[in-house]
């Protein structure tokens, strides 16, 4: 067995299928996207090389920067909500009754498909029959809040289901990390007279710092390239009020048939995500803490 695994040819053979898939489905398309971004192309006719024109147009495109602003706002919301997830995970990982059941309940949204979630929340937000507006009406509130039609609140209305959707995922990650902390450390702290808050802030959170960093990157980068719920629920509307970078890219490429510009946006989005990831890693760079 060991002999097989140390045989270079064998290793290559094992890696090959996955490598081929990753190359064909991820890296080659990235390179192609970069290439199309330099073209003027309607998807049908001949391509015309226009250099960086698409990018200079992008930099001056206020609709794009508005969508970028929305995406960064979503990233900020997601990052802040991590605090809440961490708090919930801390409570759950403590010896409270029904923690196991609660953990499963929190995970349910994660198991639903995005489209199902979108349909669910469309019903909740429905201006006349929706749960929220019906509830408000029964409480004596007379006006109708048009959750997805009002440009001032549509963004917030769409962030809530997104945050809700991913809650279970992050809680699960934190929960698993917290459960990995040796009980001896927590007990030692307790014997030394630390209260639960001190245990949380001085022992538990520092120990799962590396996991926290990963979740920050996941949450922020995931938000920057977010697409699904927005596409189904508002399609970026009304009039671009809930447009994010990925949906703007989609609209340019597949609605306006401007594949060159769409590709440029896609490539730019990739660059933004890379830069942001690098920045986060820089900012959160610190020594790994270990108590033993």
């Amino acid at each position, binding site marked *: 067995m060991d002999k*097989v695994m140390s045989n270079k040819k064998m290793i290559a*053979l*094992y890696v*090959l*299928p*996955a490598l*081929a*898939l990753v190359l*064909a489905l991820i890296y080659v398309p990235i390179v192609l996207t970069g290439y199309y971004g330099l073209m003027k192309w*309607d*998807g*049908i*006719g*001949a391509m015309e090389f226009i250099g960086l024109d698409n990018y200079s147009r992008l930099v001056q495109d206020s609709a794009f920067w508005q969508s970028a602003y929305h995406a960064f706002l979503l990233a900020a919301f997601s990052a802040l909500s991590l605090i809440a997830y961490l708090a919930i995970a801390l409570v759950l990982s403590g010896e409270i009754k029904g923690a196991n059941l609660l953990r499963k309940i929190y995970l349910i949204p994660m198991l639903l498909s995005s489209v199902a979630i979108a349909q669910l929340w*469309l019903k909740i*937000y*429905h*201006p*006349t029959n929706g749960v929220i507006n019906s509830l408000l009406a029964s409480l004596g509130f007379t006006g*109708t809040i*048009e*959750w*997805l*039609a*009002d*440009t001032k609140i*549509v963004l917030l209305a769409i962030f809530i289901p997104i945050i809700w959707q991913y809650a279970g995922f992050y809680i699960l990650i934190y929960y698993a990390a917290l459960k990995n902390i040796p009980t001896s450390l927590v007990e030692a702290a307790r014997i030394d007279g630390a209260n639960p808050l001190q245990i949380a802030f001085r022992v538990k959170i520092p120990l799962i710092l590396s996991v926290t960093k990963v979740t920050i990157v996941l949450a922020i980068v995931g938000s920057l390239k977010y697409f699904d719920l927005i596409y189904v629920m*508002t*399609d970026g*509307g*009304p*009039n*671009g009020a809930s447009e994010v970078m990925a949906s703007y890219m989609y*609209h340019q490429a597949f*609605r*306006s*048939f*401007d594949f060159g510009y769409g590709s440029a946006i896609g490539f730019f989005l990739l660059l933004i995500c890379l830069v942001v990831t690098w920045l986060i890693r820089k900012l959160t760079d610190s020594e790994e803490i270990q108590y033993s």
Partner: protein
Amino acid sequence: MKKKTMTVALTVALASAVALTGCGSNNAGSSENAGNTNTGGNAPANSSTNTGGGSAEKVTLKMMHLWPAGSSKQQNMIVNDIINEYQTANPNVTIKQEILENEQYKNKLKVLSASNDLPDIGMTWAAGFLTPYVKGSLFAPLDDVLGDGLKDSFVSGTTEAYAVDGKTYALPLELNITPVYYNKAIFAKYNLEVPQTYADFQKVVDTLQSNGVAPIALGNKDRWTGSLWYMYLADRLGGPETLKNAINRTGSFEDPALVKAAEEAQALVDKNAFNKGFNGLSNDEGKSEFMNGKAAMYLMGTWELPNFTTNETIPQEFRDSVGFFKFPTIEGGKGDIDSWVGGPGVGLFVAENSKVKEEAKKFVKFFVEKWGEQSVTKAGVIPATKVDTSKVDLPQMYIDILNELGKASNITLFADVQMSPAVAQVHLNSIQALFGKQVTPADYAKAHEEALAQEAGK
């Protein structure tokens, strides 16, 4: 070791299966062809023997369409009937179908044109969709087919939607116009009459509104729905030419009539004429307000007719209570009441580089004629060719609509179809902003004018 090799083999097999399913899914639809001799999937389209013309020679025509047996059963049946009939009459011709769902169809058409490998016959949409294909010399002009009398059998204005620079590149199969449907039961309850003028219409809206009934069902998340309202206002105020000219750049979008139409649209919003939250609702959600009897009127295409006549899943009581009226005329406006917003749906094209172009054209002509005889009775689809209502047995609403079509003075093609895709996006977003009152009518017109001018300047 033997076990290991097995695992490797399985891994490779699994990986290739994953890779292949991506390419293979399209063929599932194409293999359900009825009555075809060839089941070889994507074999090259054109038969090798053909040199053009000789009637005894074997000819294979490849046809791509978007009516799978699953989702468009009636249409699919008619297509197969027509093909069988043609093949019986012309034993040397074999017609191979490839069938894809709408979105897949559009994508495949694009991919095939990039590799210059279009089927001999296929389906296209009008104006804005068609133009890039024509500019790329991918479709053949069909004026010779229209020549001997066929053109007269089309409702006037329908083939023009497929014309670029004076040549017609596809023959339309479907035609839709957009009446205002209304709920007779609600109208009767509040003693309302079908409005003849826009002033009457506004009174109807006021009465319904003050009685707590949403006057008009609208789902404007899809945006073209609101565009219909705007187009009618523009037509009734400025006549059919004003909007057309603004789009084809012989006129301006800042024409007073077009700005006034935008003002009227906002006036309707101010009156609460539309159901609440319409800008966040899809067309289906908007439609359900009408279907549930919560809203009294609904402006939509005649593709909804089955829902109001023959569709058994909708309560008989509701179907009986639906009527339609023509968008009323506006006092002092130039438009007349027999001018419609609408347009042809899909049409048949013949590929420019098809090796069997003449045979393909013959079949297209045959298809259009046969389709016109069968589509409305068998599938409830109004064909672009004229229908003799005295000879067909149809629900009354169909007869009425077909009669209206017969005396239509004009059919204005949907604005977002008239425009190029990029300008259409500006138009649709502006419509949403206009109805959401985020822009003034003047700015609305200006946004269009700028987008159109920029497009023309390219």
